[in-house]
């Protein structure tokens, strides 16, 4: 099954709070899991990525947690800021192809 299921569809967080977006997959052949951030009118931009042999990766305020046995992974944004307001997509790679989740619209209220 070449699907990645993403939740929630939208999320509102107070400034300084933690934003959490979750994704789940079925295909165990997926071997690379990037997260993309997209601002209105722009193309998606790589935010952070992880491989399935690692359980967590942190870059600044952004952390990916990966649970291989549950086939789930999540993005945590610590100390969320209004500038983080954007659409976030999880994705998974098999071969040379990317499969995207449906996206989460994040709004950070100041």
């Amino acid at each position: 099954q070449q699907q990645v299921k993403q939740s929630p569809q939208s999320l509102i967080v107070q400034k300084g709070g933690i934003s959490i977006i979750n994704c789940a997959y079925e295909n165990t052949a997926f071997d690379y899991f990037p997260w993309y951030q997209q601002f209105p009118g722009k193309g998606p931009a790589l935010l952070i990525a992880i491989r399935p042999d690692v359980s967590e990766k942190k870059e600044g305020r952004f952390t990916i947690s990966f649970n291989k046995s549950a086939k789930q992974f999540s993005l945590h944004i610590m100390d969320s800021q209004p500038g983080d307001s954007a659409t976030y997509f999880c994705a998974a790679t098999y071969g040379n192809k990317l499969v995207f989740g449906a996206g989460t619209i994040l709004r950070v209220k100041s």
Partner: protein
Amino acid sequence: DAGITQSPRHKVTETGTPVTLRCHQTENHRYMYWYRQDPGHGLRLIHYSYGVKDTDKGEVSDGYSVSRSKTEDFLLTLESATSSQTSVYFCAIMPGDTDTQYFGPGTRLTVL
């Protein structure tokens, strides 16, 4: 935008007319992709290319064709546009030494 340009950036066309979108890269990467983005669906792969004249279908290829006669250019053609093809189209490239795809700025296409 990773050395990727897309043209046109906006286009409005009539049902039944042919439309060609262009993706141009400056780095001569082997892999190039076309996606469409629609609310609630994320990005879905239309076609991709792994070299000059080497292309393959993606998840939503019906109604679309592609061509790649030069490394730097990847063209997406809608032979006879339909209203269901109203969408935002993104081109992406993937450098050979990575699994990461980098996206262009997009083309907003409206089919009336």
